[in-house]
C-alpha cells in the first residue's frame, strides 16, 4: 500500500485481459519452486536474449506481469513457444515437456526466484471464497466495496507476486509489507490513535485509522509510537482447503486495478 517501491513499479493497465483470469482450464495449475528455479535457468539461456532479463524486452509483452500479445492460458504459452511467431521473428523452440512446464512456472511466478510452490485455481470460485467462506470482505476492499482499514486489494495481483500472496493467506505475519504495519500512537495530549501506516519520514507519519480517516501527524506531537509486526489477519491454513486456497489465489492474482 501507499508510497512503496513496489507500488511505484506497477502498471495498472494490465487489468486488460491476459493473465490467469481468462483461463478456461478447470484444474488447479501447480507451479513448484523447483520448476520456477529450472525455468529461470532455461529462460536465461534461451529466452532472455530477445525478451530481456526482466521479461520486458519485446514491445507489448511483459512476461512477469503476464502481459502477452497472444497468449492467455498456459497452453497458449506452450503453443507460442513451441511453434514460434514467424511474423514477429520468434523462432520455434524444441523444449521437452518438462522444460516447457518450468519456463511457464517461471513466467507465472512473476520471475520470482524466491517464490515457493503455489497453485492457481479458478477465478470465479475464488471470488466466492473471498466474499463467502473466507470472509475477506469483512476487512478488505476491492474496487470500491469493503472497508478500508486493511489494504485495498483492487490491484494486488499487479503489485505482488503469486507466492507472496499465497504466503499472505497462509502465514499473514510473514508476508506483510513493512509500510502496512499497524501503529499505536499516544499523542502528547493523551489521545490514542490506532491505525495502519501509509507513509513515514523523519518528521511525520501518515496513517489510516479505524474510522477510515487519513491522518498526518508530526512526530513532535507524539509521545509514544509503537509499530506492530504481527498481522491482524488470521491465517487461513487449515481453514480453507488446498483447492479453495488455489481458487482464492487465482482471484487475487486477477485483481489488477
Amino acid at each position, binding site marked *: *500500500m*501507499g*508510497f512503496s517501491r513496489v*507500488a*511505484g513499479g*506497477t*502498471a*495498472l*493497465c494490465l*487489468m486488460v485481459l491476459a493473465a490467469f483470469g481468462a483461463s478456461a482450464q478447470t484444474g488447479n495449475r501447480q507451479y513448484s519452486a523447483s520448476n520456477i528455479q529450472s525455468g529461470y535457468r532455461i529462460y536465461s539461456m534461451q529466452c532472455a536474449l530477445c525478451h530481456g532479463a526482466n521479461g520486458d524486452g519485446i*514491445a*507489448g509483452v511483459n512476461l512477469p506481469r503476464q502481459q502477452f500479445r497472444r497468449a492467455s492460458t498456459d497452453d497458449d504459452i506452450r503453443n507460442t513457444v513451441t511453434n514460434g511467431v514467424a511474423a514477429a521473428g520468434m523462432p520455434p523452440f524444441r523444449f521437452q515437456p518438462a522444460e516447457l512446464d518450468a519456463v511457464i512456472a517461471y513466467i507465472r511466478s512473476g520471475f520470482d526466484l524466491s517464490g515457493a510452490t503455489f497453485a492457481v485455481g479458478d477465478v470465479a470460485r475464488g471470488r466466492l471464497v473471498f466474499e463467502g467462506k473466507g470472509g475477506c470482505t469483512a476487512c478488505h*476492499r476491492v*474496487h*470500491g466495496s469493503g472497508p*478500508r482499514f486493511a*489494504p*485495498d*486489494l*483492487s*490491484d494486488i495481483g499487479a503489485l505482488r507476486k503469486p507466492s507472496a500472496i499465497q504466503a499472505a493467506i497462509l502465514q499473514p505475519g510473514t508476508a506483510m509489507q513493512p509500510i502496512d504495519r499497524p501503529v499505536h500512537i499516544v*499523542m*502528547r*495530549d493523551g*489521545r490514542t490513535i490506532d491505525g495502519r501506516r*501509509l*507513509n513515514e*519520514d523523519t*518528521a*511525520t507519519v*501518515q496513517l*489510516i485509522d479505524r*474510522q*477510515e*480517516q*487519513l*491522518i*498526518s501527524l*508530526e512526530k*513532535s*506531537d507524539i509521545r509514544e509510537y509503537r509499530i506492530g509486526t504481527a498481522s491482524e489477519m488470521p491465517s487461513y491454513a487449515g481453514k480453507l482447503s488446498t483447492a479453495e486456497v488455489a481458487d482464492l489465489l487465482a482471484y487475487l492474482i486477477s485483481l489488477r*486495478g
Partner: protein
Amino acid sequence: MRKSFIASVALLGALAAATPSTAQITADRILRASAEPQNWITYNGGYDSKRFSALKQITPANIRDLELKWVVQNQVFGAWESNPLVVDGIMYVTERPNDVMAIDARTGRLYWLYRYTPATDSHVCCGANNRGVAMLGDTLYMGTLDAHLVAIDAKTGRAIWNREVADHKSGYSITMAPLVIRDKIIVGTGGGEFGIRGFVAAYDAKTGKEAWRFNNIPGPGEPGHETWHGDDWKTGGASAWITGSYDPALNLLYWGIGNPGPDWNPDQRPGDNLYSDSVVALDPGTGKLKWHFQFTPNDPYDYDSVQIPVLADIDWQGKPTKAMLWANRNGYFYVLDRTNGKFLLGQPFAKVNWSKGLDPKGRPIMTPQPAGKPTWPGVQGATNWYPPSYSPSIGLFYFSVWENYASIFRREQSQYQAGRTFPGGGQTVFAPPSSPTIGVGRKGPIDNWTSEVGSGATVAVDPHTGKRVWTFPQYDVTDAGMLTTASDLLFTGGREGYFYALDAKTGKEVWRKNVGGSIVMAPVTYQVDGKQYVSVISGNSLMTFGLRE
C-alpha cells in the same frame, strides 16, 4: 517544527470533524463551493469558474511574510499542468502521465500514490499532460491519455472502475479534469490534431455507465450538420480538452469547443464547421444542446475555443445580467448573455488582423492575410486554455495574453489516416530571420527568442467596455492561470519562473518570488487549521506558501 500542545489538539479535532468516513464531497457541497473557501473542490474552484477565493488572511499588507512551507517534486519530466483539489486538509493532484497523489496539505507528505500506465500507443499532440481530478463522495475521477475514465478511492488510492471513453488508437485522449454535476461525471476528449470527431459525455458516478454523449460535430439530420460538406464532419476535430462551467439556476452546462480539422486547411472543410470554436450550452441531464455561439467560423488558425466559460452576474446597460465572460484565443474578448447565448460585446484585447471586427451578432468579418504574410495573433493565440479569473468584488476579468506574436500559416491538402496527425498544412511563428521561435512549452532557461518574437502580459479587462484597465507586462510569454482573493490579490506566474502577487485593482506587483520553473497552470488557495495557503506548480515542483508564524 515543534508544535504546541494546543495546536496538536486543534489539529486532531479539525481532522476528526472535517473528514467524515463517508461522502466527503456531496453534490450539494459542490453547488455551494464558495461557502467553503478553505477547500478547492472543483477544477475551477466552483461551477462559475471565477477562480476567486473568499479567503483573505493573506493581504497586500502582510504578503511580505509569505514564505515557502513545503514542496512536492514530481516523479516525471515534462510540463506539469495539473490543478490540485484540496478537500478537508488533503490535496489531490495528478502528475504525468496519469498518476494521482494524495498529499497532507499542511506538510506536503503523501498518503498514497496511484499509478496508471496509459497504452503506449496513446496519441497526444502537445504533451502527456493531465490537468487534474474531480471528486464526488469519496471517489476521485480522472481522464487518461488513452481516453479512459477511471474512478479511484480517495482514501486508499486504488481503482474502483475504469471505462473506455473513446478509442485512443484513433487519436482520442483525455487531458482535462472531469466535472461533476449531481451524479454524473462529465468529460470531453482531446485529439483535434488527429481527425477525431470530438464530444462531451456524461458517465454515471457509481457505475461508469455512459449517460449521454453530445457530439461536438452534429451528424446527418441534426441541426448544424449543414455547416459541413460530404464526410468532412467525420474527421472534423472539434475536441473538448478543457473543463467547462455550470449554472445551477439555469441548469445549463457550458463547454468550450476546439478547432476544426484539418487544422490549417479550411478549403478541405468548407462551411462554418459547427460547433468547432464555439461555446455550447447543454442540458446536463440529457446532453441536449440549448444554445451555441461560434467565435471563429471555418477557422484556419487553430483558434481553439477551449477557454473556460466564466460566469458572472454583472450590470449590463442598467440591467442585472447573467453574463459569460470569455477572452478567446482569437484575440477578442466577448461578453455573452448566458441564458440564451446572445452576443453583448466583443473587443480585441491584443493585435488582431485576421478579422477587421465583429458584426452586430458577434460574427467576425474575416480578413485573411496574403500567403506568406503574418497573422495576428499567432498559432498559440492571444490567450489559450490558461484559466482566467473574475473578481466580483472588483469587477475585473484577468487573464494571460501573448503580445506582439504572429504566425505565417500555410495550407496543404491532408489525407486522413486513423490515428495520424491531420494538419492540413502548417505554420511558422513570425520572427526575425534565423531567430528561434516560441513553442508550446519552454525549452530551456535562456529566452533566446526574446520579445522581438513575442512577450506576455497579465491583463485586467473591464467587462462593461472590453477595454484593458491595466497591463502587467512580462518579457517572456506566459501560460499561467489566475487566482484572485477577497483581499484583492491576484496570484499568477509565467514561463520565466516568477510567482507573482499583484494588486488586483491596479496591477502593481506587491510580491514576487523566483521559483525557477515555468508556471503553466493557475495557483490555488486553501486553508487548514485556520491558516491560508497558496499553492503553485512551477517546473517539476508543487510549492505551497503560507504566512510566517
